């Protein structure tokens, strides 16, 4: 009954939808900043577009050959040349200021992160490591995240976006995500989180995000990494931070007890 009207709810859109032209809804301050910057710049863009099209259309209209068979021989006009050089160079400067401000604020790690998650790209799946909680080199909570094949999709799941093991992160917590591949360059990109980070072999790239609301966020690889490049999606599931602990420990318990039992047997 209720599910029939679910489509009426104003739910944030965190995955791509068919024929989408705009952004996915922001879930981090970074993405909010990106969207705002885009809209700010678009204001100037439309202004310039209207102005330039007006000049162009007007020129075509008035200097059409039946109306104006003999063209004027003006080849030089100092004033207009100065104006049309100065103004177009000022506008990008005004666009650059907020753009750089945003760019550098995205790089900045303001607060110490609470969690480090390693996103390791492989051909063609992803491995995630949660190693904040282990007390030896071997114990870390590691799992692989494969795309769900088209034939196994269930109703409501997005094609080539769903994975078998999602990355679970707490919401409203500062996260550090270390992005690196194990073979060829990959990328870790989630539009709703405003994140697109290349994974370069031999290098650990850090991104710091803070997901502002609970939800499931989808992303795809953004660096051509081979034949199955299209089949390495990313799914981030943000849970309330009080649930995060139980999620992680539920996954940790089988591992640690498994090891403990193994040790006891030895």
């Amino acid at each position: 009954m209720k599910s029939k009207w679910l489509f009426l709810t104003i739910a944030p859109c965190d995955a791509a939808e068919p024929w989408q032209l705009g952004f996915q809804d922001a879930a981090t301050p970074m993405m909010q900043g990106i969207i705002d910057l885009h809209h700010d710049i678009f204001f100037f863009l439309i202004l310039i577009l209207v102005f330039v099209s007006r000049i162009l259309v007007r020129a075509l209209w008035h200097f059409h050959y039946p109306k104006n068979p003999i063209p004027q021989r003006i080849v030089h006009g100092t004033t207009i040349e100065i104006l049309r050089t100065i103004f177009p160079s000022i506008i990008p400067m005004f666009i650059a200021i907020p753009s750089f401000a945003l760019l550098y604020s995205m790089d900045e790690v303001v607060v110490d992160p609470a969690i480090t998650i390693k996103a390791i790209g492989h051909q063609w799946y992803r491995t995630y490591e949660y190693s904040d909680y282990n007390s030896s080199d071997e114990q870390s909570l590691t799992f692989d995240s494969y795309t769900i094949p088209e034939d196994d999709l269930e109703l409501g799941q997005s094609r080539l976006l769903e994975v078998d093991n999602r990355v679970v992160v707490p919401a409203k917590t500062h996260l550090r995500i270390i992005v690196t591949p194990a073979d060829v360059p990959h990328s870790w990109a989630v539009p709703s989180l405003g994140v697109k980070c290349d994974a370069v072999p031999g290098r650990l790239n850090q991104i710091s995000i803070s997901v502002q609301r609970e939800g499931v966020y989808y992303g795809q690889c953004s660096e051509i990494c081979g034949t199955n490049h299209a089949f390495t999606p990313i799914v981030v599931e943000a849970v309330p931070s009080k649930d995060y602990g139980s999620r992680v420990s539920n996954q940790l318990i089988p591992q640690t007890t498994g090891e403990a039992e193994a040790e006891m047997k030895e």
Partner: protein
Amino acid sequence: MAEAASPNSPSLAEQYFVKEKEEKTDAGPKPTEFKEVENPKEAATQEAAVEKTVEAVDEKAVEETPTASEESSEATPPAEEQSTDPTSDAPEVSSDAVTEQSSGNTEEENVGDQVSAQETPEIKLETAPADFRFPTTNQSRHCFTRYVEYHRCVAAKGDGAPECDKFAKYYRSLCPGEWVDRWNEQRENGTFPGPL
């Protein structure tokens, strides 16, 4: 237009500043703890009466039987997309499924109890802090340095010195397991490239 620029309108930085009730100063010596082994039995029995049993188990139930999750489709937003199929005979099915679930639940509990009796891992939300030596996106050096620091610490203070533990935590947080394995191997062979 004038009021848009009024002095108490928040600046861009303020606007985007993460308001945190749960803000914890992780850098500090005592981080807030998530002692979270939330007794599965308790939770289950409390909520058994309510039809939201599913929610209590759903983390565990996701793997096994997503049958009962139909009714909880609006209660549990993220975990299940597969629950959205509106079956016509939903009531009977779900009541069956709930009993099924609760029976499954008791099994789960028992397992859970045994496990938690054996071991209660305690999740502290704590990780390697941001290091001013490595302010860039590239953190490869950060990881390497922490690894070296740990092993120099162990070399100086002796094996299992408690003051070295934090370095161990840091490098484990930062370095991919593969890298650590490779470096461990290199140290054993004496081919580790760093200053130890």
